[in-house]
């Protein structure tokens, strides 16, 4: 590598920092998720995202998260930047306790036997879903299962 090469790579770094910067809140989101990482939890990974009506005011967004033992499909509806409705579907179907964790507070609910749950009004905030081991549920979790933090 010559000095010229290094100089050009430094210019490239500046270019990518200017044209495609990391989201301003990404580090805070990671730290929010790390608060639970010390506990024994299982991390769900995002599998796919579907956008519907992305150009309109009423944007619906469906995100699927998966881990070894369980998957959860989450649909957000309502105008971005305001409180939104979150509908979730746990697969395989199980009546698990679900927590919607935000930096300020947590909301809790229990899924029905079909694995469906909802939070009628969330955010706007950073939100992380936590599926808790629940006695009698069809899926026997040994530890909490968590999603990455998403901005609602």
């Amino acid at each position, binding site marked *: *590598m*010559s*000095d*010229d*090469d*290094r100089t*050009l*790579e*430094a*210019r*490239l*770094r*500046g*270019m*990518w*920092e*200017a*044209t*495609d*910067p*990391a*989201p301003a809140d*990404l*580090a805070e*989101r*990671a*730290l929010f*998720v*790390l608060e639970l*990482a*010390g506990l024994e939890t299982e*991390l769900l*990974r*995002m599998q*796919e*995202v*579907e*956008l519907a009506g992305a150009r309109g005011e009423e944007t619906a967004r469906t*995100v699927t998260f998966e881990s070894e033992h369980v998957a959860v499909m989450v649909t957000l509806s309502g105008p971005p930047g305001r409180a939104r409705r979150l509908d979730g579907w746990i697969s395989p179907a199980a009546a698990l306790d679900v927590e919607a964790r935000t930096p300020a507070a947590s909301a809790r609910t229990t899924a029905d036997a079909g694995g469906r749950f909802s939070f009628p009004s969330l955010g706007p905030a950073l939100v992380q879903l936590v599926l808790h081991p629940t006695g009698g549920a069809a899926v026997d979790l040994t530890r909490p299962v968590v999603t*990455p*933090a998403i901005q609602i």
Partner: protein
Amino acid sequence: MMTTETGGPPPRSRFADGAAADFLDWRAGDADALGRLVRRVTPTLWHVARAYGLSREAAEDVVQSSWVTLARAADTVREPQAIVSWLCVTTRREAARVVRRTRLEDSTEPAVLAEQGPPAADLADAVLADDEAAALWRRVDQLPPRCRQLLRIVAFEDRPDYRSISAELSMPVGSIGPTRRRCLDKLRELLADDTHRSDR
């Protein structure tokens, strides 16, 4: 090679040293050091993840999972001095995994893969803010995808580990250095065209 390795310390070394200090402080029990480490290195991991053509959402997810991986494996990191490298390799591995899986399922899934880099609409603000960046971006966009990917990785990694890059990009280890230089030369040619045009 003994030539051309002069010209002062590599510009990114202070960055890597700072991250190593944060990591050691955190492992020694200073809880705030984790915040410093995450804020310092997250932008770099972002660019490494985006080099793989991941959408913004998928890249955000990959970066978060890299940090979770570190939190769980912190005690097993054998070279704390190389923590940035460790994090970059972890991020590349996860990004490559997401790309592979997405290609297997549906090669055109737009929500996960965004091969073309930032969409033109996103670039519009940057064009106004920074002409030089916009000109460079347009030229980089004309490079073969593999060049774009490799250049973005090596631009952000302090001392890129060619072995793991080779596995992820399916390129022989020995060809990465020469390819990196060829890509830079190609880019220089494209940029020279711009200069000639503006000289006229």
